[in-house]
């Protein structure tokens, strides 16, 4: 059991390893130093570093391609996110924000596969107050929900969701969000919609390292600064005033 005791490891400071003292180490120690330097916000240099990084050449384009979604599912998700997030004066459209890519990565990854989800039966639908009770991982739920929505669309409009008119898509989303649509086969519409909606929002507003919120255009909608380091003096300086809308993401500071 000695290995499980991390007393020694935990006591060691995080010292730079390997060939040199790189940027990541610099950020770590700058922040720790900042805490010890006590009140001196000047010691915490992250925003300057971040701005320098922003001025650097543009990162390579996000690689495209799907890790989880099949062709039908990809078409559904692209149509969905472009309908929910249309291009306008506020932001680019959903696929240009990478929300479809975010969703694909989330479903392909640990969360989609049921990480942290208690998956032992017996299974009962229960009351809404008892929360999620389906014997499905999020990825399985998504897959079944897209199939069921497309089945509804084919029955109602003769085509899948990605091929119907904009007004018809609107009708479908209203039906999903109000549970007016009832899926054949028993999948609860409410649970599918809740998951679908949550993932679209996550794709707009999570850090760009997850594939969505491309160019931090989601954060720019609301003036959210992202990975801010220090606001100690800003509380006074910007009280009641707009804060510069130049969001910084994790990759900008890594």
């Amino acid at each position, binding site marked *: *059991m000695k290995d*499980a*005791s*991390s*007393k020694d490891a*935990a*006591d060691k400071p*995080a010292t730079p390893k390997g060939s040199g003292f790189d940027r990541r180490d610099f*950020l*770590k120690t700058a*922040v*720790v130093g*900042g*805490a*010890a*330097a*006590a*009140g*001196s916000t000047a010691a915490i240099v992250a925003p300057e570093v971040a701005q320098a990084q922003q001025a650097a050449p543009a990162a390579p384009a996000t690689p495209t391609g799907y890790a989880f979604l099949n062709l039908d599912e990809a078409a559904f998700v692209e149509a969905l996110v472009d309908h929910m*997030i*249309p291009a*306008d004066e*506020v*932001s680019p459209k959903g696929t240009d924000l990478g929300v479809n890519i975010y969703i694909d990565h989330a479903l392909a990854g640990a969360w989609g596969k049921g990480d*942290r*989800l*208690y*998956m*032992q039966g*017996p299974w*009962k639908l*229960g*009351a809404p*107050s*008892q*929360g999620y*009770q389906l014997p499905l991982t999020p990825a399985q739920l998504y897959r079944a929900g897209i199939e069921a929505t497309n089945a509804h669309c084919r029955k109602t409009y003769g085509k899948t969701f990605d091929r119907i008119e904009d007004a018809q898509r609107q009708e479908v989303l209203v039906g999903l969000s109000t549970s007016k649509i009832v899926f054949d086969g028993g999948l609860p519409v409410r649970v599918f919609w809740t998951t679908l*909606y949550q993932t679209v929002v*996550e794709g707009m*507003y*999570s*850090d760009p390292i997850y594939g969505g919120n491309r160019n931090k255009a989601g954060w720019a*909608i*609301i003036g*959210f600064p992202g*990975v*801010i*380091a*220090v*606001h*100690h003096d800003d*509380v*006074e300086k*910007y*009280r*009641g005033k707009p804060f510069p809308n130049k969001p*910084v*993401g*994790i990759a900008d500071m*890594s």
Partner: protein
Amino acid sequence: MVTKLKEVDVVIVGLGWTGGILAKELTEAGLKVVALERGAQRSPENDYSLPNIRDELRYVVRHDLMQNTARDTITVRNNPQQDSLPMRRLGSFLPGEVVGGSAVHWSGHTWRWTDMEFKVRSNYEERYGKKSIPEDMTIQDWGISYAELEPYYDRFEYTAAVSGKAGNIGGKIQAGGNVFEAPRAREYPLPPLTPILASEIFTNAAREAGYHPFPRPSANASQSYTNPDGSKFGACQYCGYCQRFGCEANAKGSPHITVIPIAMRNPNFELRTNAWVTKVLKASDGKRVTGVTYTNVLNGEEFEQPATIVLLCAYAINNVHLMLLSDIGTPYDPVTQKGVIGKNYCYQTGATATLFFEGKHFNPFMNAGGSNASIDDFHANWDFDRAPHNFVGGYVVAGGFNTALPIGYRPMPSGTPQWGSDWKRATAKWYQTAMVINASGSVMANRYNCFDLDPTYRNAFGLPLMRMTFDYKDNEHKMGGHAAKVINDIAKSMNPTKLNPASARTDPWTVVPYQSTHNTGGTIMGTNPRDSALNKYLQSWDCHNLFVIGANAFPHNSAYNPTGPVGALAYWTADAIKNKYLKNPGPLVQA
């Protein structure tokens, strides 16, 4: 096969605030202490550091620092008639699972609970008569007094770098503080945090309405600080990533930067992480415990750790679960109202209004964990007459922000479309121009709100999950209605462009969304073993060398956040062990 290890003086189960405080105090008293923590070790330098700690998806949405429900959870139901079903993922509350426990990701709100709680039944009976308390409301006095606990509150506040303004020093009312608080010996260790616009305009409106606003006391260091143990704090940076996150500025009062590192430097201490305690072992006479069994979750190996004293310091719910799994004390039965283990589970209630102001600019992402102003006119204020409103307990109202990150916080007036261009325009328009006023309300104990072992579902170790039966009762519905009216009156006086008004929480309690990680009760303290599991020193009535430390000991829940009394009681118990128990091991209170 279980490997039996060498006996130690003390084994601590769970290393958060309470375990950390006890580990430091008892190793300094010369005892050999082993702490068993189911989570892993993470450090401010390596884990709670920029830029990666600034990740709402990872820490808020995906619960990176929290208990993993795939491995262990509870089952839930609103009443005994319902089928209890597993809480399959976290939602309503978020126990931490890491060295430092939930005190890594808390916001730091630190209150002193007083005789208003500790003598709750006596107070109400004296003022309103025995009949004022509903028959199924199983509130009872705690067996401890504020005067006894005051020095320990002081100790905890100075350890945790609490920023605030005293309202009552030695009986003398102090301008700018909470005028309703009980007398304290001295000021907070640090002055209040810098107010943000939302808390300022709430403060002005509350004052004009005749209330007594004050800055919320919070373990967010408003300045750099060295605590009495020599632990160093940086100044809070108002980064907006407080609740759910570890603090990269070492400005949040947390055990992993204070008491735990001190214990770690003491040769009397050993921490074993990834060590999952499955049972407390009873001696054959049933009057003592002999240690614990645990599993090393890195390889599944099982160990027995014998100890002279066992301290349960896990999250409140998990402490109760261990007591039930270990068959210590008599399980509570809500039908006969016999037994004590599992009794008086409580939660908190609340009400929230969102105010929209065209033209204002709140910068909601700029805040500390405690950047709110509060009023205590309907809780600690005993002059507030509950009789016309017919409820027991009270609520605190606050205005300001706490973790207004964009996946979770995008306020919009009711009726705004949920998608499309108009949704996006509303998101853009109102994110910067909205603020919230909310109430946090007490929950009185009820005979049917309780824990027991679930008959069906099991955890990753093959052990029964604990079953939680809970719902708000008429008392809380009435209080919520009163709170909503007070909030809405303040809100309207502020002339918002639009208002989503507050309303009483009257639907059944639900496991989603997040509400509050303030679960209390289950192994409660009290004056006798017939109606409580622990005595005033949090010592088991059944086994004198077992102490169960945390909010599990609270016989009901207050409007306030629980960490103040949790920390104070940990110091109180440490002193009782050092100064009383070691000299004469046995029950510290005669049953």
